[in-house]
């Protein structure tokens, strides 16, 4: 029977609010996996690897030394028996035993195996990532302060709470501070809905047209169209 403790995500009687907080954070992450498209991309990137036969098991260098030592020992003992104490009823070591028995290679220290140079992997055939890495590793000037998540989350909260003015102000603040933020689509959706609720329909329509031109396949396009088609509450 397993002696494993209960995982945080499985706890029923949470001992503290901290445990509850951590459980919720972990639960939110458990379902997060890369998209199918991402996995397809990774598969194609690894295709040269998949098409290459895996490296054969190679004995570790110390196995060669061990084999030589065993062979020497057997040879010396064999010569000794032959010349001094050879007895017909005593089993002889056949000469074939002079070669070291093949040790299972899975006994090799895994770290040393990882540090060996890759013998058969055509890594050169894999896509180069040097350019991207170099760009990411550049000593950078500090990025502009952009509370992307916080601002958009706050704007969304205001919109849901029935405060379109505040939502719009926060969307503007996001636009100013995070012009290339990852949540631009969400900000625009919030701004358009806020404008509609404020009765500024023409501005909402103009902003929606710009949105659709910029993000034609966004999941928000349908929602924005619906919002434009129905009268503001």
């Amino acid at each position: 029977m397993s002696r494993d403790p209960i995982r945080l995500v499985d706890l029923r009687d949470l001992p503290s609010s901290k445990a509850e907080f951590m459980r919720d954070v972990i639960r939110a992450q458990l379902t997060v996996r890369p998209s199918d498209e991402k996995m397809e991309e990774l598969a194609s990137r690894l295709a040269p690897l998949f098409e290459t036969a895996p490296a054969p098991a190679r004995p570790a260098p110390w196995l060669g030394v061990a084999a030589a030592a065993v062979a020497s020992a057997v040879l010396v003992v064999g010569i000794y028996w032959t010349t001094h104490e050879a007895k017909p009823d005593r089993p002889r070591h056949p000469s074939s035993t002079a070669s070291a028995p093949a040790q299972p290679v899975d006994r090799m220290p895994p770290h040393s195996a990882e540090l060996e140079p890759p013998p058969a992997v055509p890594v050169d055939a894999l896509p180069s990532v040097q350019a991207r890495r170099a760009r990411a590793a550049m000593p950078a000037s500090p990025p502009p302060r952009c509370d992307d998540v916080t601002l958009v989350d706050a704007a969304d909260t205001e919109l849901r709470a029935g405060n379109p003015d505040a939502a719009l102000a926060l969307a503007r603040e996001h636009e100013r501070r995070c012009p290339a933020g990852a949540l631009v689509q969400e900000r625009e959706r919030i701004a358009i809905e806020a404008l509609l609720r404020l009765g500024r329909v023409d501005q909402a329509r103009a902003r929606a047209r710009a949105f659709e031109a910029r993000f034609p396949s966004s999941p928000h396009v349908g929602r924005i169209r619906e919002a434009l088609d129905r009268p503001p509450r």
Partner: protein
Amino acid sequence: MRAVSFPSLASTDAAAPEVSGAPDIRAIFRDYGAFIYTMLRSLGVRASDVDDAFQEVFVVIHRKLATYGRRGTLRSWVYGICVRVAFRFRRRAGATREIATDEVPETADPMTPAEHLRERQAREILCAILDELDDDKRAVFVLFELEGLPMQEVAESLQCPLQTAYSRLRAAREAVDAAVDRHRSRRDFK
């Protein structure tokens, strides 16, 4: 999640790169690829490095496949490689800073940015908390609490005695507890 296809290898099962008794690397990709990808982030690999780290994991798997000895589960063997690669990337990245690069490319994504937002918030909180753990504690915590491995497999992955793995988990939970406190106090004083 649907299975990822390998167009160029679709009908080559007979020619699959197999060493006698060794698992097929494509099967490993299919069964564990998505988990490895997510786990690399949880283990502290920077977002901009995850693709490279993922590739390195499979290069190592490819190189060592013939040495897989079935002394533990395949999963613990694969995850052990993942942990070591992740920590090499963390050390390598230690001296460089991550900077914002391009705008996120637009793709046909069924999730709304709001859903991404919630995920991203949870991810950021989790990463901030895990960043406060040392490598050993972080690995045990991620493998047991996030990836759901039994402790026996956690110990196999990390090549440490089972009791050591238990001790590290206990220490990791205490460290996470303290990190949650610090995270909350920072948030409250914002």
